[in-house]
C-alpha cells in the first residue's frame, strides 16, 4: 500500500473520528471511524487525525465553544466540522498550482455537513451506532459504504472535485422551490393533506412533493426537508433516475457514467478497513452487508421505477434471507423512524414517509398504504401534475436576464439561483471575485453571530471587479442575495438600483428596506 499508487486521490482526504476513543497506547486506530482514501497507510491516517485533534484541542484553549473551523496551509486547506459532540469530520484539500482550486471553506464544510446529515437520515446518529455496537464495527462499515457512495458524486474523471469558486452561486443544503400560483398551491396542498391523512387510521404520514428537481410542498421541518430534498434530487427524481447524462440540476452537474464505474469499482475492489483493525473476522464487504444488512441508499442505480408508479429499491430487497421492506429514514425533528415510499407520476415525485412504529405488519402495511395512496390520490396526482406541467417554465424559468444571482432564505433553508447554464457564461474573474466576497461575508456572518446571536446581521457590499463586473452581496433579515452583473453601467448608483429593482420584482422587496 504505497502512497504514490493513490496519487489520483491524493487531492483530498476525508476522515471521521471519535475523540473519545483510542486514548490508550496502541489503540489509536480505534479513533478512526472513516478515512478516505482508505488505502492510506495507517501511519498517515493516524498523523492526519492526530494533527486535527491537536489543532482542535489547541484552538479550544482560546475558544472553548467553537474550535477551529479552517486551517489554511500553504499547500492544503483543512476544514473541521463537529458533526456530533465527540465526532469530528475533517477534510483536507490540496491546493493546486492552477487557481482553479480556489474554494470557499464554508462550501467545503457544507459538504461535510451534508454528508453527515444524509448519513444520519439513513443510519441515525453515529453516536447511536457506536452505543449500539461499541466496537465501532457497525459504524465503520456504514460510514465506509455511505461516504464512498456519497463521494461518488464528486468524481470528475478519476479525481474528486470539491466545490470550487465556480460553484459560488450555489448553496448546498438548501431547497429549491417551484413558484406556483395560489390556485395551484392549494391543489398541491390538498394533495399533500390527502396523502397525509390517507394512511391507516389516525397515523399521519409526512410527505414531500417535487416537480422536476424542485420542491412544491413539504410537511417536514425545514432541516428534514432539506435533507430529504437533497437525497431526492440526487437519487429519486426522474432526472436523477434517468440519468447520468448531464443535463441541468440545481445541486450539481451530472456525473459521467465512467465515474460511477470508477467509484463502484473502487468500492468492490477494496477490502474493508476493519480487516486491519480487528483480525477477529475475515470479512469481505459483501458478507458484512449481509451481516449488518447494510442499506446503501446512496448507491447509484439503486432505485428504479416500478410498474405501479412506485420506486423500487432493488438491491436490498432480499439480503441474506432478510426481506428488506423499504428504506427507513430518521427524522431529526420528530425523532421518528419512517419508511420511505416514493411514487412518481411523470415529473411529479411524491415522497411519502410512513411512521415505522405504525407498521407492525411491515411489508403488508406498506403495501396497504401504497394501495390507499393510489385509491385516494391518484386522480389528484394526475391533476396536479398536469397543472404544474402547464405552468412549468422550463429549466431557465428563474433566469433574470442581466443578473446572475443566488438568493438564500436561511430561515426556510430555501435558495434560488440563476440556471447553471447561465452561470457558466460568467467570466472567471467575476466568479473568482464573488467567491472571495462570499468568503468575507461568511466570516462577517460568523463574527456577527458570535457577538449578537439574537440579532440578525444586515449588510451590503458592492464590488467593482477587475473585469468591470459588479459583484454584490446583500444580507437583510436572514435573507442573502449574491449577485454578479457583467457588462453593466459603471456607477455604483446603477448597481444599487439594479439590486433594488431585482429585490422589488423577484424578492417581494425583501432587500429594499432602505
Amino acid at each position, binding site marked *: 500500500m504505497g502512497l504514490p499508487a493513490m496519487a489520483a486521490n491524493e487531492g483530498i482526504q476525508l476522515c471521521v473520528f471519535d475523540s473519545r476513543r483510542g486514548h490508550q497506547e496502541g489503540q489509536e486506530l480505534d479513533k478512526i471511524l472513516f478515512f478516505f482514501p482508505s488505502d492510506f497507510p495507517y501511519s498517515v491516517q493516524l498523523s492526519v487525525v492526530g494533527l486535527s485533534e491537536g489543532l482542535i484541542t489547541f484552538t479550544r484553549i482560546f475558544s472553548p465553544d467553537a474550535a477551529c473551523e479552517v486551517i489554511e496551509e500553504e499547500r492544503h486547506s483543512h476544514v473541521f466540522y463537529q458533526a456530533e459532540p465527540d465526532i469530528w469530520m475533517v477534510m483536507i484539500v490540496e491546493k493546486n498550482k492552477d487557481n482553479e482550486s480556489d474554494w470557499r471553506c464554508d462550501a467545503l464544510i457544507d459538504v461535510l455537513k451534508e454528508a453527515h446529515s444524509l448519513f444520519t437520515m439513513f443510519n441515525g446518529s453515529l453516536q447511536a451506532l457506536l452505543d449500539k455496537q461499541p466496537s465501532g464495527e457497525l459504524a465503520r462499515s456504514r460510514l465506509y459504504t455511505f461516504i464512498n457512495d456519497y463521494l461518488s458524486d464528486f468524481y470528475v474523471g478519476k479525481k474528486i472535485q470539491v466545490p470550487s469558486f465556480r460553484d459560488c452561486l450555489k448553496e448546498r443544503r438548501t431547497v429549491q*422551490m417551484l413558484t*406556483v400560483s*395560489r*390556485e395551484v*398551491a*392549494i*391543489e398541491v*396542498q*390538498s394533495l399533500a*393533506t*390527502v396523502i*397525509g*391523512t*390517507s394512511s391507516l387510521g*389516525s397515523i*399521519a404520514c409526512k410527505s414531500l412533493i417535487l416537480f422536476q428537481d424542485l420542491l412544491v*410542498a*413539504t*410537511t*417536514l*421541518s*425545514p432541516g428534514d*426537508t432539506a435533507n430529504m430534498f437533497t437525497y431526492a434530487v440526487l437519487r429519486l427524481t426522474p432526472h436523477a433516475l434517468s440519468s447520468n447524462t448531464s443535463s441541468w440540476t440545481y445541486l450539481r452537474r451530472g456525473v459521467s457514467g465512467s465515474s460511477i464505474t470508477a467509484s463502484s469499482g473502487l468500492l468492490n475492489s477494496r477490502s474493508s478497513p476493519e480487516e486491519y483493525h480487528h483480525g477477529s473476522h475475515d470479512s469481505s464487504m459483501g458478507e458484512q452487508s449481509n451481516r449488518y444488512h447494510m442499506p446503501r441508499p446512496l448507491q447509484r442505480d439503486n432505485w428504479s421505477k416500478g410498474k405501479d408508479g412506485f420506486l423500487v429499491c432493488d438491491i436490498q430487497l432480499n439480503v441474506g434471507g432478510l426481506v428488506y421492506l423499504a428504506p427507513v429514514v430518521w427524522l431529526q425533528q420528530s425523532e421518528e423512524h419512517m419508511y420511505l415510499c416514493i411514487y412518481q407520476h411523470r415529473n411529479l415525485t411524491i415522497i411519502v414517509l410512513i411512521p415505522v412504529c405504525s407498521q407492525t405488519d411491515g411489508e403488508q402495511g406498506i403495501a396497504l398504504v401504497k394501495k390507499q395512496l393510489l385509491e*385516494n390520490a391518484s386522480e389528484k396526482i394526475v391533476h396536479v401534475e398536469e397543472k404544474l406541467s402547464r405552468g412549468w417554465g422550463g429549466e431557465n424559468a428563474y433566469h433574470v436576464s442581466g443578473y446572475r444571482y443566488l438568493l438564500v432564505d436561511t*430561515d*426556510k433553508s430555501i435558495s434560488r439561483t440563476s440556471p447553471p447554464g447561465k452561470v457558466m457564461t460568467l467570466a472567471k474573474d467575476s466568479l473568482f471575485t464573488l467567491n472571495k466576497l462570499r468568503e468575507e461575508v461568511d466570516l462577517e456572518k460568523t463574527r456577527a453571530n458570535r457577538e449578537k446571536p439574537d*440579532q440578525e446581521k*444586515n449588510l451590503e457590499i458592492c464590488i467593482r471587479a477587475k473585469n468591470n463586473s459588479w459583484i454584490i452581496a446583500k444580507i437583510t*433579515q*436572514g435573507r442573502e442575495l449574491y449577485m454578479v452583473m457583467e457588462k453593466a453601467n459603471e456607477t455604483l448608483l446603477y448597481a444599487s438600483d439594479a439590486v433594488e429593482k431585482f429585490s422589488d420584482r423577484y424578492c*417581494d*422587496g*425583501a432587500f*429594499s*428596506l*432602505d
Partner: protein
Amino acid sequence: MSGKASSDPSQVGLSGSGALSHVYIQHPPLRCNVPGTQGLYYDDGNKLLLAPSSDQVLSWKVGPSTQSDPPNSDFIGEGPVLSIRYSLDGKLIGIQRSNQEIQFINRESRETFSRRCRPDSESILGFFWTDCPSCDVLLIKTSGIDLLSYEPDLNTLRLVEAKRFSVSWYVYTHESRMVLLASGMQCTIFSGYQFSSGGIIRLPKFEMAMAKAEANHKPVLAAEDIHIVIIYGRVYCLQFDRVSMQLNLYRFYRDAVVQQGALPIYSSRIAVSVIDNVLLVHQVDAKVVIIYDVFLDCLSPISAPLPLLLRGSSVSGRQALQVEDNLTSAYGAMIYGDSWTFLVPDLICDIDNGLLWRICLDLEAIASSSSDVPSVLEFLQRRRSDPSKIKMLCLSIMRAIMLERRPISIITRAIDVLVTSYAHLVKMENAFQGGDRSSKKSQNSGSQSANTSNIVSAESLDETMNRGKSIIKGAESETQQSTIRNLVNVNDNHAKKSTSKASLDSVSDSDGDANLDAMRSNSGESLDKYLSTDLLSSDAMQDVKKNMKHDYLKQSPIESEGLGCSSSRSDSCISNQQEPQIISVAISLDEMYHFVFALVEEELGGDPAYLIAVIVECLRCSTKEKLRVHPNLYMMMIQMLARTNRYSELALFVTNKILEPSKEVALQLLEQGRQNFQIRKLGMDMLRQLSLHHDFVTVLLQDGYYLEALRYARKHKVITVQPSLFLEAAVAANNSQHLAAVLRFFSDFTPSFKLTSDYNRYHTMLIEMS
C-alpha cells in the same frame, strides 16, 4: 336506505309520530264541507276551491297555509254545474252547465251570457281562462278548440280562432299553461298547445306508446292516466301505462317531445304530485308514496316507498303523540281513500268530507335516510320550500360529518356541493346587481322567439349549457327569486315586510295583473326605470319598490315563461311565505365559518391535521369558484399550524399566498410568532409586502432593529411613528453613537423636533452616556 328516518328519538318532535315517512299531510286541513253544496271544484288558475250550491258558489282561496278564512260567495243562478272557473282577473265566472252550454256571469253586473255548441255535431269537453294576449277563454270541444276573447262593452265572447280537429279528451293545467288534446282510437295521439302570456305555442303532434295486453285488444288511454307536471321549470307529461305497469316520462321541448324513461308502478291507481320540484308518485293501492328527484336524468327513487303520514300541528312531545293518535283514529281510514282527488301540484282534496290537504316533504327524514352525504346536500340545496330550515339542516350535516371524521374525500365533495351552490347564488346576485338583467331577459326572450331553440322552459337554455354541472341548473329562476328575496330582506324589518308582501301577493294573484301586464309590456327595460316613472322614489316608497321588485321577479318567470312552466315556482314561493324571513338555502362561506368551522374547532382542535385538511379543501373549493373565505379561517389555520409547530407548512402557506395576505393575517402571524421568531418574520414580511409601513416600522422597533426601522421610515416617509420610540430603542441598546445618530436624524428631518421635550430629554441622556 330508509330505516333511520324516524328511529332517532330526537326527531320525534319533528316528524310527529314514530311512523316512518318522508311525506306527510299536515293537520288541520282546509274544511269546506258546507251543507247544501254539491261537489268541490278546483280552479287552478285562481287557486280557488269552489263549492256550488243551489244558486251560489262558495270559494276558498287556497293559500300557502290551509287556514280557513270564511269563503266568499257569488251568485250563479240555478242550474247544473259540470265545471266552474273564475276568470283570471276575477271579473267573470264561467260555468259549464251541460256538454252543450257554458254560461258566463259578470260578477259586478250579474249579467249573464252563454256560449253553446252545435248540438248535432259536437259537444263541449271543457274550458279554461288564459292570460295569453290574444284570447281570454279556451273552449275545448270534440271538434276542436275555440279561442275566444271577452268583449267587456258587449259583454260577450268573440271567436278569435277555431282550430278544427277531433278531440277525445283533454288535459290542462294552469301552471303549465299547456293543454294536451287526445285523439285517435287509443287516445294516444296528442296535439298540444301552450297558451302563455308570451303567446301561443303549438307543440308537434306526437303519439304515446302503449303496451299491448293481448293480440287483439288495444287499451285506450284515459285522461286520468295523463299528468302534466313541472319540475325544475321543465314541463313533463307522465303517462301511466296500465299494461306494462309503468309511468312513462315525456319531456316537452319547444319543437320536440322526448321520452325520458319510465318509472315502475306498483298499484292500479296512482296519483302524481310535485312538491318543491320533487316528484311524488302515490301508489294508491299500496298506500305508499315513492319520491324522485328528476334533476339529472336519473330516475332512481330518493328513498324507499313509505306511507303518507298524517301529522298534527306543531305541538311538541307527548301531547303531539296523543294528537297524532286522535288524528289517526279520526282520519286514518281516509288516507288514500276513494274520495281523494289529487290536485296540481301538491294538494289533496277529499271530496266526500270536504277537506283540502296540502302535501309536505319531511326533508329531515329524507336527509337522514341516506348515508351518501354529498348527494343529500345536493338534494337539499335544490330545495326551495323552507330555506332557513334547509340551511340549518345542511349546516348540521356538515358539522356532523366533520365530527364523525368522515374521510376527507367525502368532506371535500360535501363542501364542494355547498360552495358550488353558493357560488351560483352569488353569480345570480351579481347578474341582478350588475344591471344586466335586461340582457338576461333578452336572452330568454331570444330563446323563445328563435325557432331553432328547442326548449320549452325559460331557463332551459342555461340548463342545457350547464348540463354537466350539478346543483345549479335546477331552478334557476327560483334562485333568482330567493336571491332577490334575500336582497329585499336585508334591510327590511319583518313585520313591515310580511304585511306589505301579503297585500302585494293578493294583488298579483287577482286583478293586480294590470301591474304585471304593464311591466310585461316594458319587458326590455329595467324595472327601476319602470318604477321611477310610476312611483315616487321617496324613502317610504323604497320598501314598496323593493317588494314590487320582489314580486315582479317572482312573477317574471311567467312573463318570460313563454312557456309556461313557472307557476310552480310562484307556488313554491307562496308556500315560502309562511316564513317571514325568507333566505336562500345556499350557505355562504361566512356562514360556513361561523356555523361549521367555528363550532367544530374546539372538538377537532386536538387533531389539527384533519381540520387543516378540511380547511384546505374548503379553500380549494372556494378558489375554484373565485370566492373568498372568512378571514377567521386563516386565523384558525395559522393558530393550528403554529401550535403544532408546523413551520415549514405555515411558511409555504404564506409564500404561496394560500393564506391570503391581509393585515389581520400578518398580525396573527406576529402574535403566533412571539415564541417563534421565524413565524414572526413571516408576519413582518407580510406587513411589508402589504405596504403597511407604519406597522412594519413599529414591529422593527419592537424587535430592537431601530436603525433599520429608521432607514425604512425614511425611505417610505413614515412620519406617524413617535421619534421617542426610536430614541428609546437606541437608549435601550446602550449605544451612544446610535443614539446620537437617531437624534441627529430627527433634528435634521423633523422640523421643530429640537423644540420638543423629547429632544431635550434624549440629548441630556446622550451627554450623560458619552
